[in-house]
């Protein structure tokens, strides 16, 4: 479904990532692993349109999305949940979800789905998003992304700032989504969690793909353990 080829991107003329080839097939869950500064966020921002790629292509189901602005890529079916979440703090939880479906009006079914997945959101739907806890905000961010019925859901470090138990719940929710047929692309520092949900993974190091393979392969790989610990 998603094909990234030869992608290079960065800031102020400096390349942070280079020569990136990533593929995500429909219904798959793929993980991008790497330590801080490896370039995971830059890669995701480039795919999502928040950052203009310097080289390479991003293709979703035959449609070339390279260099399209973020709102167009969102409407094309890629929903991106960034690490900072970027929720609308002064709006109610429900309003945040409703806006997720922009420009369409939200349909009941999808809203029910999100509430089923995250019952806590249903409880607090009238609460202002800015007053939610870290875990609830993360759930809201994912829920908002789902409201657009995306083809591909990208999550950047979904467990940041979450207590281990909450992180566990979050990944269980992602498992649930995958079972429903959602295609996932997840960037994570916490390798075991990521590999537990994903079928395949790519290891990103210093802006380049160092390794790729099935989760099982990566899990056994000693170099992966090195990347996980971030030791040079």
């Amino acid at each position, binding site marked *: 479904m998603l094909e990234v080829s030869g992608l290079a991107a960065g800031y102020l003329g400096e390349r942070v990532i280079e020569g990136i080839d990533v593929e995500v097939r429909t219904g798959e869950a793929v993980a991008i692993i790497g330590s801080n500064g490896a370039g995971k966020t830059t890669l995701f921002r480039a795919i999502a349109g928040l950052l203009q790629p310097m080289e390479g292509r991003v293709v979703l189901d035959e449609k070339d999305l390279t260099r399209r*602005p973020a709102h167009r890529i969102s409407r094309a079916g890629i929903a991106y949940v960034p690490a900072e979440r970027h929720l*609308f703090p002064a709006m109610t939880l429900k309003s945040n979800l409703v806006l997720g479906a*922009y420009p369409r009006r939200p349909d009941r079914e999808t809203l029910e789905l999100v509430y089923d997945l995250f019952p806590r959101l249903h409880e607090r739907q009238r609460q202002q998003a800015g007053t939610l806890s870290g875990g609830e905000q993360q759930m809201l961010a994912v829920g908002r992304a789902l409201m*657009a019925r995306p083809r591909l859901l990208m999550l950047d470090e979904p467990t940041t700032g979450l207590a281990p138990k909450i992180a566990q719940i979050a990944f269980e929710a992602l498992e649930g989504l995958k079972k429903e047929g959602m295609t996932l692309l997840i960037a994570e520092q916490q390798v075991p969690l990521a590999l537990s949900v994903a079928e395949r993974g790519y290891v990103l190091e210093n802006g380049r793909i160092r390794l790729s393979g099935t989760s099982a392969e990566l899990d056994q790989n000693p170099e992966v353990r090195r990347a996980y610990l971030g030791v040079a």
Partner: protein
Amino acid sequence: MKAVVLDGIVLGLAFGLLGVGMTLVYGLGGVLNLAYGQIVILGAIVVMVVMEDGVATFLAAVLGVLAAAGVAVLLDLTLMRPVYRQHGEERTLLGLLLTLGAAFVIGGLLTWRYPAGALYINVSGEPVSIIGVPMAVGSLWASVIALAVAAVLLLFFGLTTFGRGVRSIIQDETGARLVGINPAFVRTVIFALSGALAGIVAITQSMSGPLTVNAGFELTTFALIVTVVGGLGSVAGAFLAGVLLGVVNSLSAHYIGQYITTIILLGAAALTILIRPRGLLGR
């Protein structure tokens, strides 16, 4: 005393209407449109010229509003493009400077072409008595229009999808882009809306008294004060601040003096910046 307060409310609604256009653009894009007062005057001049050619008042008013909206869109599509490419303080500073330049261009051209230009829409009718105070019909109409505009705007931003989209951009622009909102398009629409509001201000102001061609800077100043006190991007804030300042203005002008009154209003803006920068209802 009742009369003074009522006058203040009428004035305040006019202030609010004046401030709303500027606060929307400032809250949404971070741009302080210092050419706002001149756009109001442009609307007024268009109405004046068209009415001199014999066009009916209502149609002339519509044309004036459209002209003002049109100029606003033109401004957005030309000068504002490089401004939006900047971010944060750089953007506000560049926006402020470029619109200041635009203010001089528009104002200068208008005063050059129509040195004695003034718009006065005479609304005929006997003064109406509100809680025992006789109020001029023109001023009352102006207030009614202002209230109607306020209601429409609040409904629009509170209930419609587009309106919610606008609010979302103000709160988190990146988040808005991620849910599929195009900030550039929304900003142009809002700029056009602020222009239309400027046109409406031209109409309502000229119902209460003649609006002259060199009133531009003064209008911009009051719009700025209301925007600052009311809070960025808040429609309700602009009207609330407007009415408060209007009443203060009226009381002060009646009991103290004209020049001190202006100083007091200016002081209110400065005080807001120093003590509560986000204004009454801003975030």
